[in-house]
């Protein structure tokens, strides 16, 4: 098992070097800020009674979905889970559509058919999660299988918490990915707790070690360091594209709030929050970029402004009409997954030849 920490070493990907330009680094910060602002706004809407059902988010874990999804190309595919809003945003979903989704509005990604984080914009190459964890790990294997069978240098990426790694379907997915050497990248977010259950009651063996027994590399990174996550994901994607098979990346982090908005976190020792608050991925990255002479305040202000606009848009969306509930059970045409956004400058260069 290889263990990687922040590794700004160049990585070859399709003959190009995986390096982050200053423009990329600004984008990484912007996506993390957008993720947090969207989720803070959604939580406020939940407290105002505008978000029905329950509320879950990934505040404090922004570096993971942002750092990893940033690596993906337009034709790569994703199955994004419940604390990974950053990946949706990077693929190109507008924050307003996410807020509308949370509120069960017609303008939400599922048009009110499904709630909270159970969505994926198929136009952007995302297959939306189902609540059963981690079922999407197997769907990810299937996406990767289709790339492999068609000999296309594409990658399927999915995310899940460490709690998911106890479920049999996770093991089925790792085994299938290992046996067939599928071009899949599995991002494991170890945020210390599965709902209220701490690591020591979840597993006897660190899940990242299991990658090796399934026949592929497992890598552990600091999940609160967006660039460390990025470089680990870039290396994994390069391996997948060149026929080297899957990678499991464990990102160590901490869930900085309850499992959902209803959870008072009585089971979490307070000192743990204090320790992890010091490592907040956004604060850390802001300091780092400011030290490098990047105008962080301008990025923060523009993200804030964007969320204001998007919230207004979401609130202006109507609720769906009742009869809509009866439509769409069966398909009458072929599936269509579109291409996603790929903000990393690497892909822009690739597009320009």
């Amino acid at each position, binding site marked *: 098992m290889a263990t990687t920490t922040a590794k700004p070493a160049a990585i070859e990907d399709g003959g190009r070097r995986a390096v982050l330009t200053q423009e990329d680094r600004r984008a990484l910060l912007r996506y993390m800020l957008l993720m947090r602002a969207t989720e803070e706004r959604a939580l406020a809407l939940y407290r105002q009674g505008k978000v029905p059902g329950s509320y879950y988010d990934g505040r404090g874990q922004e570096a993971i979905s942002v750092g990893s999804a940033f690596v993906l190309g337009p034709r790569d595919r994703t199955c994004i889970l419940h604390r990974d809003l950053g990946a949706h945003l990077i693929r190109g979903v507008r924050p307003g559509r996410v807020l509308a989704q949370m509120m069960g509005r017609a303008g939400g990604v599922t048009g009110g058919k499904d709630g909270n984080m159970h969505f994926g914009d198929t136009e952007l190459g995302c297959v939306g999660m189902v609540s059963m964890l981690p079922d999407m790990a197997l769907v990810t294997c*299937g996406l990767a299988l289709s790339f492999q069978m068609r000999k296309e240098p594409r990658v399927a990426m999915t995310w899940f918490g460490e709690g998911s790694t106890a479920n049999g379907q996770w093991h089925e997915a790792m085994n299938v990915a290992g046996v067939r050497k599928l071009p899949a990248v599995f991002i494991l977010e170890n945020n210390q707790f599965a709902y209220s259950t701490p690591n020591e009651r979840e597993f006897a063996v660190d899940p990242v070690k299991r990658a090796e027994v399934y026949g592929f590399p497992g890598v552990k990174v600091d999940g609160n360091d967006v660039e460390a996550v990025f470089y680990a994901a870039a290396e994994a994607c390069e391996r997948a594209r060149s026929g080297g098979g899957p990678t499991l990346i464990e990102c160590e982090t901490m869930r900085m709030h309850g499992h959902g908005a209803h959870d008072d976190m009585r089971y979490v020792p307070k000192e743990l929050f204090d320790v992890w608050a010091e490592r907040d991925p956004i604060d850390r990255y802001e300091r780092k970029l400011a030290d490098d002479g990047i105008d962080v305040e301008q990025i923060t202000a523009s993200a804030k402004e964007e969320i204001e606009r998007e919230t207004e848009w979401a609130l202006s969306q109507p609720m769906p009409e009742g009869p809509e509930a009866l439509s769409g059970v069966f398909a009458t045409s072929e599936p269509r997954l579109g291409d996603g956004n790929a903000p990393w400058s690497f892909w822009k260069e690739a597009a320009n030849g």
Partner: protein
Amino acid sequence: MAEMTYLSAISDGLREEMRHDESVFCMGEDIGAFGGAFKVTDGFIEEFGADRVWDTPLAENAIIGTAVGAAVEGLRPVCEMQFADFISCGFDQLVNVAAKMHYRQGLAVPMVVRLPSGGGFSGGPYHSQNPEAWFLQAPGLKVVAPSTADDAKGLLASAIRDPNPVVYLEHKHLYRRVKGEVPEGRYEVPLGRVRVAREGTDLTVISYGAMVGIALEATQDIDGASVEVIDLRSLVPLDTEGILRSVRKTSKVVVLHEATRSCGVGAEVCALIAQEAFEDLDGPVVRVTAPDVPIPFSPPLERAVLPQVDDVKEACRELLAY
């Protein structure tokens, strides 16, 4: 036309679709070099290669979940459950992932899960089940159950070309017992249309799968009565018009299936008739089914559970005399 067994008709249909459409591939346990537990894919790996005839690990959720991912990305997987019973181990992927995908996010999932189902050969409680009713409670799945060789091929083709997840029940007892003329080349039998297996005017027996043959045998001569036999072929979508047309003609109905009784397909058909054709009836709608027990192993016990020709005869006689 060539005479084929039900089993070779399924093989033939699958092979034709794979030859015609590169995106069709099959996956399942021991379907490669061994040709499948029942030999449906015998010779496939030689013709299509190990990629398109994927001998999977023993992991039913993996088979179905991986198929979902491949299907949404444009392939057309045909999964084999070694025995229908093992669908329970892949149930979550089928009912929560595959079935709801289109409703939740408008994404079609064109895949087929083949289930060798049914009893009659001392398979015991884990190799004899008829689990079709489980799927009727999972909106988004289509469910078909052929009873003849030409339907087996044509319905499989329709299932493969359909943009939805289709559960295809192939009855093990029919594999080598049922033979018939099967058209060459590709053709479809549309989903959602009953087949009138025999025309009649005095009573209708409604059935599907292996029980269609039992219905025909039991009613070929019941005191000179003219008995119509309807083969549902497709349980979802259900041809309600086809059912009601026959009920209105004969006014007496026996619903027959091999699966257990409570909340089964028969219950659904009975409820439909009670609501839509009450005034056309000349007697109670009668069900002949397995009782609500697991399928036992020992031959006399199994015979006592699965509907027999005499059970059907008796039910028909009573209803004709009503």
